[in-house]
C-alpha cells in the first residue's frame, strides 16, 4: 500500500497491546474489587437473616421444652423459662445479641446450638463433607456431560438428531428430582441391586444421588449452552468468516463458538453450585443422607437460630466465592471485559 492515509480513523494503537502481565493486572484488580464486595454481601446476609429470624414467632427455649428428648422427664412447670433464656443469651437486648454474633463472626465462632449446645462449627463440620462430596462429584460430571449434550444438539448434520438431543435436557429438567431419585432407587437398587439405596457412609452410596444431580446439572448446562451456541453459530464470524477460511462446522464450534457461548453457562454454573450446597435437601431425604440441606431444615423447624445463622453465613460465603470465580472466569474469557474493568478503575482513581 502506498498512500494509505489513516486520517479518518481514530489514532491507531494509542494504548499498548495486551501482554500476559496486563491480563494478570486487570484480573487482580477485578479480584480486589470483588473481595470488598464479598465482605459486604456476607455481612448483609447475616444481618438480614438475624433480624428476619428474630421476628419469627417462638424461640428455641419454647421449642426445646416442647420436646421431651431434649428436656428429658423433668417437671416442666418447675422450669424458669427466663433462666433458660439467660443461659443461651436470648434475654439480652436485640442489639447486644446482634453485636455478639458479628463479633463472633470475626473470631470464626458461630456460637452453639440452642437446642443441644453443640458448637455450630462442629455441626457444620459434620454435615459439610457429605454435601461437598455430593455437590463436587455431581458438578464434576455434569460440566463435561452438559457440553457433550449441547454439542450433540448443534453439531450433527441431521436435523432429527439435533432436535432430539435438544429435547432431552428440557425434558429432564422438567421432571421432579424426588421422582427421579425414587425411580433410580427402584431401578438400580431394588431391582438390579447394583448400588445401596441410601446412607452417608459408603462410597457406593454416593453413586445414585450423584447420578441424579449430575444429570440435572448437565441438563441445565446443556439448555443454556444450546441456545448460546445457536446464537454464536449465527454470528458472521462463525457463519461466514470461519467457513470461508475452510473451517468445518465442528471446527468452528470448537474453536470459535464454545468459548463465546460459555458466558451464559458460567452464570448458570454459579447458580448451580449454590443450588447444590443449599438445596439438596430433597435428595438427602430420598437417599437418607445427612448434609447441609437436612441440617438447615431441622434447625429451622427447631427455631435453632444460631445454627440457621451459621448456615446462612456459610452459604453466603460459598455464593460469594463462586460468583467471584464466575466473574474472574468472565474476564479471563472475554478480553472486552478486561479492558472495561481496567478503564473504569482508571477513571475512578
Amino acid at each position, binding site marked *: *500500500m502506498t*498512500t*494509505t*492515509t*489513516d*486520517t*479518518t*480513523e*481514530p489514532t*491507531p*494503537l494509542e*494504548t499498548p*497491546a*495486551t*501482554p500476559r502481565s496486563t491480563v494478570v493486572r486487570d484480573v487482580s484488580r477485578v479480584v480486589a474489587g470483588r473481595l470488598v464486595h464479598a465482605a459486604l454481601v456476607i455481612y448483609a446476609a447475616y444481618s438480614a437473616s438475624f433480624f428476619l429470624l428474630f421476628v419469627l414467632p417462638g424461640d428455641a427455649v419454647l421449642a426445646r421444652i416442647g420436646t421431651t428428648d431434649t428436656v428429658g422427664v423433668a417437671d416442666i412447670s418447675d422450669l424458669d423459662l427466663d433462666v433458660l433464656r439467660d443461659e443461651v443469651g436470648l434475654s439480652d437486648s436485640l442489639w447486644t445479641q446482634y453485636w455478639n454474633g458479628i463479633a463472633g463472626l470475626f473470631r470464626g465462632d458461630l456460637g452453639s446450638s440452642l437446642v443441644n449446645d453443640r458448637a455450630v462449627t462442629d455441626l457444620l463440620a459434620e454435615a459439610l463433607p457429605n454435601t461437598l462430596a455430593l455437590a463436587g462429584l455431581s458438578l464434576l460430571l455434569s460440566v463435561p456431560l452438559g457440553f457433550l449434550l449441547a454439542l450433540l444438539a448443534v453439531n450433527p448434520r441431521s436435523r432429527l438428531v439435533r432436535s432430539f438431543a435438544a429435547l432431552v435436557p428440557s425434558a429432564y429438567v422438567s421432571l421432579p428430582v424426588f421422582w427421579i431419585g425414587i425411580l433410580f432407587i427402584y431401578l438400580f437398587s431394588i431391582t438390579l441391586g447394583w448400588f445401596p439405596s441410601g446412607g452417608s457412609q459408603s462410597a457406593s452410596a454416593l453413586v445414585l444421588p450423584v447420578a441424579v444431580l449430575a444429570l440435572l446439572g448437565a441438563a441445565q448446562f446443556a439448555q443454556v449452552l444450546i441456545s448460546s451456541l445457536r446464537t454464536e453459530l449465527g*454470528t*458472521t*464470524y*462463525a*457463519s*461466514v*468468516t*470461519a*467457513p*470461508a*477460511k*475452510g*473451517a*468445518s462446522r465442528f*471446527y468452528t464450534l470448537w*474453536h*470459535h463458538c464454545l*468459548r*463465546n457461548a460459555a458466558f451464559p453457562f458460567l452464570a448458570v454454573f454459579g447458580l448451580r453450585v449454590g443450588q447444590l450446597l443449599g438445596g439438596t435437601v430433597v435428595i438427602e431425604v430420598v437417599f437418607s443422607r445427612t448434609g447441609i440441606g437436612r441440617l438447615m431444615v431441622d434447625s429451622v423447624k427447631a427455631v435453632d437460630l444460631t445454627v440457621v445463622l451459621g448456615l446462612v453465613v456459610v452459604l453466603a460465603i460459598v455464593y460469594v466465592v463462586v460468583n467471584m470465580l464466575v466473574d474472574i472466569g468472565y474476564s479471563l*474469557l*472475554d*478480553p*472486552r471485559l478486561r*479492558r472495561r474493568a481496567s*478503564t*473504569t478503575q*482508571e*477513571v475512578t482513581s
Partner: protein
Amino acid sequence: MTDAILRVTDLTVTYRRDDQVDTALDAVSIEVPRGKVTAIIGESGSGKSTLAHAIVRLLPHNGGIPAGAIDFEGENVLERSDKAFRPLRGRHVGFVPQDPIASLNPTRTIGAQLRESFKLAHSPLSPAAVQERILTDLRDVGFTDPETLLTRYPHELSGGMRQRILVAIAFSQRPALVIADEPTSALDVLVGQDVLRSIHEARTKHDSTVVLITHDLALASRNADHVIVLQRGVVAEAGPVAEVFADPQHEYTRALLASSARVAEGRVLSIAEAYARHDRGTAPALSTDVAIRLDGVHKRFGSGRGGTVAMEGVSLEVPRGSTFALVGESGSGKTTTSRVILGLESADAGTVQVLGQDVGSLKRKQLRDLRRRVQVVYQSPFESLNPRLSLRGIIGEPLDAFKVGTPTERAARVAELLELVQLPAAYAERRPRELSGGQRQRVAIARALAIQPEVVVLDEPVSALDATVQAQVLDLLGEIQRELGLTYFLVTHDLAVVADVAQTVAVMRRGRIVEQGTTDQVILRAEDTYTKALLAV
C-alpha cells in the same frame, strides 16, 4: 470472454420461509473473466449477496440450489459434497464479508485469527514463515506497524482496520478468486476507499480475480472492469463497465444510472461536478430569521482519559425555512449535535437556541412544549416503527400523546398526512412489515409532521434506502418543505445528498466544524483539506 475463471449457468436459488418457497435467483448465468474485477450491482432484494454466498456455498440454512451449475476453474463445484467443497474455501476462493464489526471473533487476537487461515489451509509453511507472511500481508493492506497488531483484539480496532484485516485474511492463501460482499457499505467513505485500495493492492500483487458485490454505481464504475446488473434475481445486463454505463441497453440499468447523479456518460463525476451540472434554478434568498442557533457548544462524554469530546466549540445558524446539512463521518459528533438540539443531551458549555428558546434553561414542561415544534426522522425505517401498530396508530401516536383534537379529527389528520407523503389512504390499516423501506420512511416522515412542527431534524433519513428510493424520498421532503415552510436540520455522512437538498452546509470532524457556508461555497469552493477529501470521493 474466453478465459473465465468462474462460470455460473442457469443458477436458481430458493429460500424456504414458513411453507412457502421464495426464488432469490432465477436461472442466473454469469461469467467472471480471469484477472479482472467484476462488479455485481443491484438494489436490495436483487439477489446479489445471494449469488456471492451461493458461489462459496455459504447460503443460510433455509437456502437451496434446485438447479444450475457453478463452474470454477472448469469444474462444476456444485457436484462436490460439502466436505469436498471445504478445501476450496480459503485456498482457492477467498471471501471478504460485509460487516467488519461482526466478522471477527471478539475473544481471539488478530494474530490468532490470521494464523488460523494457514492452519485450516494446511499450509506447509513453518510457524516463523507464517509469521513473516502475515506481517508482509498486513503491510500490504496498509498497516505501517503490523507487529503490535497481532496481540490485539478486534474491539480495539476501528471498522476500517478490521475490514483491512479481513482483506488480508481473504488473500492470505493466495486464492485465485476473491469475492467481496459489499466490503465498504458499513464504513465511512474515506475509510472505504482505503479498504478498496487494499483490495486492489492485494489483487495485483497476487494476480487474483475479484468479484465485487455492491449497490454503489460510482464505486463499481471506479473499481471494476466488468459489471453484471442484477434485478430481482435475474441478470438484466452484463458487460465491460465503460460500455454498460455509457450505453445501457436495459431499462433497469438506465433507471439505476438515472438515480445516481454521480455516474454520467460512462464515467464518475465528482460531487462538485455533479453539483455543478445539476440545475436547481435560482435559490430563494435565505431568511434572516434564525430557527436554530448554536454558540460555542461543548459536549464531553465520560471523564478523564476514558472520556471523549463529542462537540468542541460548535457554532452554527440555521435560517428559518431552509435546509441546513451537517456532514460528517461516524464519530464526528454530528449525531450528538442533533441530540443537543432536540434537548436529549445537555451542552456542557455554550448556548443552544431553538425557535428563540434557550434549550439549556428550559424546564421539563417547557421542553415538552418545544418538542411539539421540533420533530425528528431517524435513519432506520426498519427499527423506528413499532411493528405491532398499524400506520394509523403510528402516525396518530404523536397526536394522541399531545392530545390533539377529537378522535375523528385525528383520523382525518392521519388520512391527510398519508396523502401528504404520497401513500394511499387505504394503507392506514397496514402494518410496517407490509411496506418497503422507502414507504416506511414516508410513514416516519408523516409521523414527524403529525403535530405540525416548525423544525424537523432528519438524521440520515435516506442512507438505509436504495438509490432510486433515496431520490424519491428526498424529492418528497423538498415538496413538503415548500408546502409547509419547514426548517430542516439534516444530519448525513453523504455530501451527495447534501448537494441535492441543502442551502447551507457545515462539515464536522472530531467534534469541530471545519467548514461552513452556503452549499455553493462548500461544494464548489471548499478550503478545508478534509472537506476536499470528502468531495473527491
